[in-house]
C-alpha cells in the first residue's frame, strides 16, 4: 500500500512538472509598451494555412462550388418540379442563402479590428495568456490536412479574442461557425464575416434546402478549403462556466469528408478558454434562473463596451495537442462502403454516427483538463464553502492560506494553475471582482448581496417559474459566485462523489465503491461531462488523489473516510447545490403524471426551492434553482433510459418510467447522510417535508 502511494506521488510529481514546463505568454505585453501599435497591425503577414492549395481558394469559390454541387443541383431540380417553380428562381434562392452563410476575407477589416481590439484589451484586461508551445506544435502540423479548432465556449468575446490570438501568431484566421444572432447585429455581422465568420441558423426546422446548402458548404470548406475551421462543440456559450455535453451537428458535417475519404485525416485542436472575469457574469446568472438574455443588438453591444471600462483581469488560452481523427476512428469504421457510386449520393450512416461521440467527448475532455484555473476560481470555491456552512465572511489572511492549500492540492491533482505570489494575486483579483466580493478596511471579505435590482420582468418571457424580484436579487450574487467556482469542480467532482458515498454508507471494498460511484457518476454525466468509458479511470485516479491527501484511507482492502476534515468539507460542499437540484428533479418526476413537459417540471422545482429559500430557516444555495442543472438532470436520466424525451408541438415532453425513477430517487437518498458533515443535512429533510 505504501509502495503504491509512493508511486502515486511520483506520478503526480511528473504531472506537476509537465504543467510547469507548459509555458504561457502574455500576447498583449508587447502592445502595452508599443506606442503606436498600428505598425504591428499592418505588418507583413506570413500566415500558416491548414492545407496548402495552389492557387489559394477564394471565399467565393466555395459558394460557387456549392451552387454547382451535384447534390444541390439535384435538389433544385426536385424542388422546381415539385412546386412547379422555375429552376432559376430556386437557384436564386440558393445564391441568397449562400450569401447569408458564406464567409469573406478582408485583410483591411482584420487589420483595423486588430488595432481596435488592441486598444480595448489594453484598457480592460491585464493580460491574454497563451501556451505558445501548444501553438507552435499545431503550426508545425498544419499544411497538409484540414485543421479544426474547437474552443470551449464561455463568452461572446471568445471568438473575437480567438481570432486576435491567430493574428498574433501568424496563423490564418479560421472560418468560424457563428450563430445567426451575430449576423443580425447591424454592422457587426458583416465585420465578423469579413474576418472569416460563416453563419448558421439556429432554427431546427426542416428547411431541407437551407440545411442541404449549409451542410454542403461546410463539406466544401473541409474538402476544398485551405483555412482552418473553428466551431464550438458545446453548441452554445456555457452559462455555468463548466463544459456542456457536446453537440454533434457540425462535427457530423465536418467528419463526413473523412468518412467519405475525401480527406486523409482531420485534426481537431481542443482549446480551452478561461476568463478571470466574464463579460456576461450577471447575464448568465439571470439566464440560469430562466430570465432570458436580451436579444443581441449592436447598440447593446456598445453599451456593454462602455460598461467594460472596468478591469476584467486575465484571459487564459490553452491549445491542446491536436487529435487525429484517423488515429481515433481508423479501426472503428470501414470506409470502403463509399467506394461505389458518385461521392455525392452518400450520407454518413448509423455506424459512423455511433462513433462520433467518442471523438466529440474526447475533445471536451481535453478542453476540461487543460483549462487554466484562475485564482478567483479558487477564491469563489472557498467563499462558497464558507457560505454553505453559514459563515458569510472570512479574513484576507484565512482566505490566502486556504488558497494556498487548495492551489497546491489541485496542482497535484493535475489542474493548471499559475505559480504566483498568493497575497498579491488574491488582492489583485479581488479588485477585478469588487462588484461581487467586498473587502472592507478590516480586510474582511464577503459576498455583496442584495445589490442587484431587476426592474419589472415580463412574466411571459420567463422560462420557468415566475420568481419574485426579491428572490432574484437575493440569488444572483450566489449564483455568480458558483459560476466562478464551477471550473474547479472538474478536479473535485469524482473525489467528492467517493467521499459522499463513504460518508453515507460507511467503509467498503473497492468493487462496491465503484458500483456506487458508477451510479452517481451516471446521474451527473451531463452536469459534469464524462463519457462512461472513462468512469473507471477517473475513479481510480480520484482514489489515488484522496488517499494522497489522507481524505480517505484503505485498510485491509476496505476504504473509509480518514482524517483530512477540511478537504472532506470542501469536497462535499462543492457539489451540494447540484445534488440538491438533481434530487428535487427526481422528486418532481416521481410526483407528476406519466407524461409531463419540461416547463412544468422546471416551474414546480423552482417554485418549491424558492419557497424553501425564502423561509430563510437555513441557508440553501440558490444555484440549486439553475435551469441548467435541471436540464442536465433530465439529460442524464434520459441517457439512463429512466425518462424519454419527445418533441410535441415544439415542446420538450418527457415520458416517465415511474418504477425506474422511484429507484433512482431511493438510490440518491442513500447519500444524503453525508451532508451532516457540512451541517446541511437539514436542507434535505426540510425539502422532503415540503414535497
Amino acid at each position, binding site marked *: 500500500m505504501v509502495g503504491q502511494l509512493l508511486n502515486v506521488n511520483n506520478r503526480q510529481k511528473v504531472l506537476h512538472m509537465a504543467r510547469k514546463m507548459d509555458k504561457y505568454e502574455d500576447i498583449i505585453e508587447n502592445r502595452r509598451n508599443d506606442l503606436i501599435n498600428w505598425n504591428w497591425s499592418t505588418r507583413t503577414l506570413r500566415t500558416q494555412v491548414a492545407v496548402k492549395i*495552389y492557387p489559394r481558394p477564394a471565399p467565393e469559390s466555395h459558394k460557387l462550388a456549392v451552387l454547382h454541387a451535384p447534390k444541390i443541383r439535384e435538389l433544385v431540380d426536385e424542388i422546381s418540379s415539385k412546386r412547379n417553380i422555375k429552376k432559376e428562381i430556386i437557384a436564386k434562392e440558393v445564391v441568397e442563402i449562400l450569401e447569408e452563410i458564406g464567409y469573406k476575407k478582408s485583410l483591411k477589416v482584420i487589420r483595423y479590428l486588430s488595432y481596435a481590439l488592441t486598444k480595448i484589451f489594453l484598457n480592460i484586461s491585464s493580460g491574454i495568456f497563451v501556451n505558445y508551445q501548444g501553438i507552435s506544435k499545431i503550426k508545425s502540423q498544419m499544411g*497538409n*490536412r484540414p485543421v479544426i479548432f474547437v474552443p470551449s465556449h464561455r463568452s461572446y468575446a471568445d471568438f473575437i479574442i480567438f481570432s486576435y490570438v491567430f493574428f498574433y501568431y501568424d496563423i490564418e484566421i479560421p472560418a468560424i461557425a457563428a450563430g445567426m444572432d451575430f449576423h443580425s447585429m447591424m454592422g457587426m455581422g458583416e465585420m465578423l464575416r469579413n474576418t472569416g465568420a460563416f453563419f448558421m441558423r439556429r432554427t431546427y426546422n426542416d428547411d431541407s434546402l437551407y440545411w442541404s446548402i449549409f451542410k454542403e458548404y461546410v463539406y466544401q470548406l473541409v474538402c476544398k478549403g485551405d483555412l482552418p475551421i473553428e466551431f464550438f462543440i458545446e453548441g452554445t456559450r456555457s452559462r455555468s462556466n463548466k463544459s456542456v455535453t457536446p453537440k454533434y451537428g457540425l462535427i457530423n458535417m465536418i467528419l463526413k469528408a473523412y468518412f467519405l*475519404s*475525401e*480527406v*486523409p*485525416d482531420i485534426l481537431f485542436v481542443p482549446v480551452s478558454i478561461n476568463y478571470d472575469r466574464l463579460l456576461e457574469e450577471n447575464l448568465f446568472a439571470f439566464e440560469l434562473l430562466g430570465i432570458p438574455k436580451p436579444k443581441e443588438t449592436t447598440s447593446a453591444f456598445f453599451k456593454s463596451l462602455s460598461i467594460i471600462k472596468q478591469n476584467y483581469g486575465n484571459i487564459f488560452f490553452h491549445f491542446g495537442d491536436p487529435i*487525429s481523427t*484517423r488515429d481515433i476512428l481508423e479501426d472503428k469504421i*470501414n*470506409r*470502403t462502403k*463509399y*467506394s*461505389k457510386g*458518385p*461521392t455525392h449520393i452518400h450520407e454518413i450512416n448509423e455506424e459512423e454516427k455511433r462513433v462520433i461521440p467518442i471523438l466529440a467527448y474526447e475533445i471536451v475532455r481535453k478542453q476540461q483538463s487543460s483549462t487554466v484555473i484562475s485564482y478567483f476560481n479558487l477564491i469563489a470555491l472557498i467563499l462558497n464553502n464558507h457560505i454553505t456552512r453559514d459563515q458569510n465572511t472570512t479574513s484576507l489572511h484565512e482566505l490566502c492560506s486556504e488558497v494556498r492549500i487548495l492551489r497546491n492540492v489541485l496542482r497535484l491533482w493535475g489542474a493548471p494553475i499559475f505559480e504566483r505570489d498568493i497575497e498579491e494575486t488574491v488582492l489583485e483579483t479581488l479588485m477585478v471582482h469588487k462588484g461581487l466580493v467586498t473587502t472592507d478596511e478590516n480586510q474582511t471579505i464577503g459576498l455583496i448581496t442584495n445589490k442587484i435590482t431587476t426592474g419589472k420582468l415580463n412574466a411571459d418571457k420567463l422560462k420557468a417559474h415566475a420568481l419574485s424580484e426579491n428572490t432574484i436579487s437575493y440569488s444572483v450574487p450566489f449564483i455568480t459566485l458558483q459560476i466562478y467556482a464551477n471550473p474547479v469542480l472538474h478536479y473535485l467532482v469524482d473525489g467528492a462523489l467517493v467521499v459522499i458515498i463513504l460518508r453515507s454508507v460507511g467503509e467498503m471494498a473497492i468493487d462496491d465503491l465503484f458500483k456506487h460511484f458508477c451510479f452517481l457518476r451516471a446521474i451527473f454525466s451531463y452536469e459534469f461531462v464524462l463519457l462512461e468509458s472513462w468512469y473507471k479511470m477517473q475513479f481510480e485516479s480520484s482514489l489515488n488523489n484522496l488517499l494522497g491527501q489522507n481524505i480517505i484511507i484503505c485498510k485491509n482492502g476496505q476504504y473509509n473516510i480518514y482524517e483530512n476534515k477540511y478537504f472532506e468539507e470542501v469536497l462535499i460542499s462543492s457539489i451540494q447545490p447540484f445534488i440538491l437540484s438533481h434530487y428535487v428533479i427526481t422528486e418532481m418526476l416521481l410526483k407528476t403524471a406519466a407524461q409531463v413537459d419540461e416547463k412544468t417540471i422546471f416551474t414546480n422545482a423552482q417554485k418549491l426551492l424558492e419557497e424553501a429559500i425564502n423561509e430563510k430557516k437555513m441557508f440553501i444555495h440558490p444555484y440549486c434553482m439553475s435551469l441548467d442543472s435541471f436540464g442536465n438532470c433530465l439529460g442524464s436520466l434520459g441517457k439512463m433510459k429512466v425518462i424519454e424525451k419527445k418533441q410535441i408541438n415544439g415542446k420538450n415532453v418527457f415520458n416517465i418510467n415511474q418504477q425506474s425513477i422511484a429507484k433512482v430517487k431511493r438510490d440518491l437518498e442513500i447519500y444524503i447522510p453525508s451532508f451532516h458533515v457540512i451541517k446541511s443535512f437539514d436542507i434535505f429533510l426540510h425539502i422532503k417535508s415540503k414535497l
Partner: protein
Amino acid sequence: MTFPINVESAIPKHRHQLLKWNGWGYQDSKFVFKDNEVYFSGKRYPIGELKLPHFVGWVTNVLGIDALKEQTHQPPPTNLDYPPPNISDEIIKTLELLNLSHSLNVMDRVVRAHGHTLNDMFILKFGKFERIPDIVIWPECHDHVVEIVKLAEEYNLVIIPFGGGTAVSGAVECPIDERRPIISLDTSQMNRILWLNEENLVACCECGIIGQDLERTLNDLGYTTGHEPDSYEFSSLGGWVATRASGMKKNLYGNIEDLTVHIKMVTPKGVLEKGCQVPRLSCGPDFNHIIMGSEGSLGVITEVVIKIRPLPKCRKYGSIVFPDFEYGVKCMREVARQRCQPASIRLMDNDQFKFGVILKPESSYFGIMLDGIKQFYITKIKGFDSDRMCVMTLLLEGDPEEVKINEKKLYNIGSQFKGVPAGEKNGERGYMLTFVIAYIRDLGLQYNVVAESFETSVPWNKAVTLVRNVKHVVIEECTKAGIVCFVINSRVTQTYDSGCVIYFYLGFNYSNIQNPVEVHHHLEEKARDEIIACGGSVSHHHGVGKLRKKWYPETVSKVGVNLYLCAKKELDPKNIFATNNFVDSVPHSKL
C-alpha cells in the same frame, strides 16, 4: 517457317548462371557506387557504363545514404543451409522412368522458392527461407505436365508452378506449414511456338516462353504481341495469364485477357479448355476467367493461343510538362474521354519527375546548355514551380500518318490543361528507364534502404484524392515509425474509359529501424487500407498472392470467396496446388 519453332531462350535452364541469385536481373547489370560516383554496369541497357552525376547527391540528401555503411550480403546457400529434400527414391525413380528432367540441388530449389517482393530479396541477402521446394522438375511439353500432375495426385505431392519468378505478390512462395513434398514445376523448358496463323493473326505458344524470347522471335517474323509488362525480359506467358497481367502498351494491344484466344490448363481432374478457337463466345460463364488470375492455385497453364499484330511502321515518343499533378490527371482524363490514348501514356508526379533527373547520365556541354534553356523556359516564362510540376510521357505506335494526327491531338489536349510539350528525348528516356528502375532496389539494400512498388486501379473521380490521401498516410506512418529518410512518389500508368492505374514507389532508410521488412509491410498495409477506403482496388495487375489476401474477401464478396473455394474443390480436391493464395490456408476438410 517450320513449326514448332524451338526458341532458344536468353535465360539458361539453371537461371542463376546468368541471373543474380539474390537480386533483380542480369548478373552483369547493376548500379555501382564507387569513389563517390554511381554508374550502371554492363552494356545491356542504354545507360550502361555511363556515370550518373546527379545520383549520389540525391541518395545522400533524400535517403540519407552513407557510402561507408555498405552492407555485406550472405554467400549463396549450400546444402547445409536447408534441410535435405523430402522426396522418396520411389518418386525419383518414377521421374526417371518418365524421363522428366529434375533437380534436388539446393541452389536450384532456393532460386525457385521466391518471387521478387522486398521480403524475398531481404531473405536472400540476409536471411533464410522457412520452406523451399523439395524438388525442381522441368517438363518439356503439355503431356509432361499431365504426367507430373498425375504423379502428384498419386503420391499426394504439392505442385507450385513456376514461370519467370518475377511475382511480387508472394504467389510462388511455399506455404510454411506444408508438410507434403513440394514440387517446383518450372515451365521454362516449355517455350516453343507450336504454330502461327497469319490469316487469324494468332500464335499458339507453350506457357514457359518468356517475354523477350517471344517478342524477338515474332519480330523476326514481322509480328509482335504488343504485350510489354515491365518484367517482360524475364516473365513468362503462363505467368501473365495466371496473374492477369497488363502491359505498358495495352491501349493499342490490350491486356492479357484481350490478347488470349484459347488457354489449356492441366488440373488434377483433367484438362480445362474450350472446344473451339473463336474470337468471342456466348456460352455461359467464360471459364477462361477462372484460369486467368488463378495464380497457380487450380492447375498448370500449358498452352496459350495469343493474338499477334504486324510490327508498327512508326514509333514515336513525346512528353508534356504540367504545372502540377492535378492538371496532368485532368489531361489524362480528357485523353481517355476522347479515347485517343496512344500506345502508352503515363504521368509522373513531381517527386518522380525529380527522381527521373537523377538517372540522367553525364551529357555534353551542349546538352547541359539545352537543358538549361528548357528549364528557363518552363520555370521562368511559363511560371511553373519546379517543386510542383510533373511530366507526362507518351509512346505512339502505328502508321506514320496516324501517329502524326494522334500526336497533334494529344498536344492540343495537353495545352488545354496548361501542358507544355517537353520533347521526344524526355519521353524516350522515361520509357527506357522502365527496365532499369527495378535494379535500384538492389543498390538500396546494400546501403540500408528498402523499397517496393505497389499499384492500384481507381475510378477517375477518386484518382487525385487517392494519391493525396495515400501519400499523407504513408508520411504519417513513417513519422510514427521513426523513419527519417523516405520517398513516396507516384505515377499514373494506364488509362481506361472509367478510371486509371496508379503506381506508388515507397522506400526508406532503415539505419535506425529494427525490423525494416516488417515496418515496410506495415506501411504498405496502411497504404493499401487507405487505397481501398478511397475507392481503389487490391491490385490492377500484380495480383493477390499471399501478400494481399487481407483484402480478397471484401473485393469479391463472401459469395465470391465461396465460389472460388468451390472451383478449387472441384478442380483440385486434394489441394495439390497448395499455393495458399487468395484465401488463408485452404482447410483440407473443406476439400
